[in-house]
């Protein structure tokens, strides 16, 4: 029993969850955040082994911005290349509410089976 199966399961789960978490992070904060900051917040929040690599955050941010759920602006930085700061849009908030609802339903459904109350 190696953990390649565990990794694959985690990866499949993350496909949609990373986007949900990113929307939630940007919804909760009043300031605009750039990729590195967001990645660090996620890292601090994870207990033990992080659930996903921080490198996967950036392409999802870009995809969300391309779909109009986030807006972004570029700010010059001393530490390196100019940073791209993200902010959630009204469309993004609407999608977040919808997705949170789906997440709660899914979690409740899965838990009922795993904990064996629904057999």
């Amino acid at each position: 029993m190696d953990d390649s199966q565990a990794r694959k399961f985690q990866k499949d789960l993350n496909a949609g969850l990373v986007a949900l978490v990113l929307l939630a992070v940007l919804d909760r904060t009043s300031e605009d955040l750039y990729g590195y900051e967001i990645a660090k917040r996620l890292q601090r929040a994870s207990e033990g082994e992080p659930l996903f690599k921080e490198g996967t955050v950036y392409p999802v941010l870009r995809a969300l911005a391309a779909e109009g759920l986030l807006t972004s602006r570029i700010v010059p930085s001393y530490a390196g290349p100019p940073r791209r700061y993200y902010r959630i849009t009204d469309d993004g908030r609407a999608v977040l509410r919808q997705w949170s609802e789906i997440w709660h339903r899914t979690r409740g459904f899965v838990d009922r089976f795993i904990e064996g109350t629904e057999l």
Partner: protein
Amino acid sequence: MSASAPRSIDEYLKQLRAALEGEDPALIQDALYDSEEYLRSEVAAHAGKSEGDVLELIASTYGAPEEVAAAYRATDAQVSKALRTPPRPTAAAPASAWGKFFGVFLDPRAYLSLSFMLLSLATGIIYFTIAITGLSISVGFAILIIGVPFFLAFIGATRVIALGEGRLLEAITGERMPRRPVHPGPPATLWARIAEMLKDRRTWTTLLYFVLMLPLGVLYFSVAVTLLSAGVGVLFAPLAAAGASLGWFPSDIHATVAGIDFDQYPLVATLVCLVLGVLILTLLMHLARAVARGHVRLAKALLVERGA
């Protein structure tokens, strides 16, 4: 490749670029940009440690180059499926050759492409002027101390314009172009930065593109205006002919189309005009789409850095 873990930011980016080989150059540019933002921020956050030590940590937090490359590949594939290729109205009814031929009038990209052809004269003149003026002033200033900041500002401006041009072309054709500027690299001295710009193939191909835009713009504009006026003119010729027969114009004008006299065969002549006018305009729309597609390929070759 995973055998040798990267020991520096440059090495990491080189490996990431290798792992993305064969992908869209615009995607590669974005991925390198994002990674560099993270890596430099991370190195800056660990001020006491060496770059090599920080990169060792990064393999477990940010991900190895291959993992990051896989994430970009996967996300870009999803995004392209979701929104990069909006369903074309013509695709809904691919039925007949006629449908395909005239379906071009339902394709928003055809109209955008036509506007691009009409606009290209103006942008061509502007780009050409910027490139030639900037280049000649740079050469003239080269012996003075202000030549250095001027050259830097000039090349920086061409990169910003090139990014804008890419965004415009992506909007028109749907072909992916970079969404981020190429970032200038690690902080370096002015001289090192200038030397790098002079050595960078893209600096020169961008200027070449700007210069080329003038003749191309003239060509696109002329072709578009000629066909547009010919098509509209022929289409409305029957009205003019009717006006002539009503005595609106001097009576010695005899309208003929393809050798058919309007006075003798008004219906046949009108029909020929309508068919010819619609044909010319339809061909123009197809031509505009083809020109925009060809042009974006040229722009990609000259404005976007090749991966590898």
